[in-house]
């Protein structure tokens, strides 16, 4: 699957990547940027909240195990406010999907779960576009 050079004119433009592995975060940013998105990465839940307060992203790509608290603390915080509760979340983790409670995740705004150990770099772009298009969740 090749998406290189694909530009998007859709509403989703700003992607916040919450990932504490800076090299992986950098890789995500590269993929999203060359595809026409504006991507920014932070490494902790706390930094994510500050960033979201400053500028609400259109979608959040979220790792689960983070510095200073897990993704669940962040998702809980986001659900506490009407505006942030609407931000779609793509969970991107090494945790095997079968160990996650998908119905609970959906209540937290998680639209798609990506497995870092099996995904390909462009799967992140596909997930973002799937969220925007409103296609059925996976």
């Amino acid at each position, binding site marked *: 699957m090749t998406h290189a*050079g694909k530009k998007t004119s859709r509403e989703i433009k700003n992607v916040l990547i919450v990932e504490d*592995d800076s090299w*992986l975060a950098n*890789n995500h940013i590269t993929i999203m940027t*060359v595809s026409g998105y504006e991507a920014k990465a932070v490494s902790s839940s706390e930094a994510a909240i500050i960033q979201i307060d400053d500028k609400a992203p259109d979608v959040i790509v979220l790792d689960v195990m983070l*510095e*200073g608290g897990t993704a669940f603390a962040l998702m809980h915080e986001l659900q506490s406010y009407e505006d942030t509760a609407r931000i779609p979340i793509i969970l991107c983790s090494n945790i095997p999907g079968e160990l996650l409670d998908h119905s609970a995740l959906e209540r937290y705004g998680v639209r798609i779960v990506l497995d*870092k*150990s099996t995904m390909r*770099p462009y799967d992140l772009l596909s997930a973002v576009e799937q969220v925007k298009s409103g296609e059925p969740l996976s």
Partner: protein
Amino acid sequence: MSERGKSDALSSILATPLAPSLVAAAHELKAPLSLIRQLALTLEEADSLELPPLERERLVRRIVLSSERSLRLTDALTRQSRLEDGLFELQPLNLVQVAEEVAHELMPLAREAGRELRVAGSHVPLALANEELVRQVAFNLCENAINYSTEHRPITLKLSGLEHGYRVRLGVRDDGPKGFDGALATLARNLGKAPTDFNPRPHSSGLGLYVANKCAEAMNGSLGLIRHSHGSTFYLDLNASRQMEMFGV
């Protein structure tokens, strides 16, 4: 909490007689392997992504460094299993030399992560230790510092004599957590504990510190943590070798 209080709390944690599970080890390895895979796949797409040569070189470098990190982890696990057999002989060891070698080997990883490694300390008594185990501890403590310290600040391997030369300390001093104290607190809590069965982050299950602590114990030494106003020091304390005294040195 006072330093003494912290030290006591740490001691109680270090006594935790648990072994790392295979599941924890598998998950510890999964994260760097996933990263290597992602970087390699991105490199494969370098043309379609129109990545400049410097970015391609960076990807290759990070793949190599992540592979080496994974290999060090497998070495640590193998070594940990050998600890139970008591196969490690103790002998007089120059910790400064070991620290310099470790710093040299880890420098590429540190620089890629935006850190600098330094060695400080001279005229330090010889330690009664095993070189392979000391190297393992130094590697683990340095990797923790690289992962958790502030970017663009130095990480110092500091050697010093303690208790009038009866003990020797190898400390790894960093200049503050890169994120929040919580990460460091978790590390401290995990020091010596068996790593959690399920934690996908490459450096957060505590496996590295657990192995380091087991190595320290195998040399009749101890592992500890000192918090500073900016940063922290994880240290390995060992008995000094008194062998030279027999010759009046």
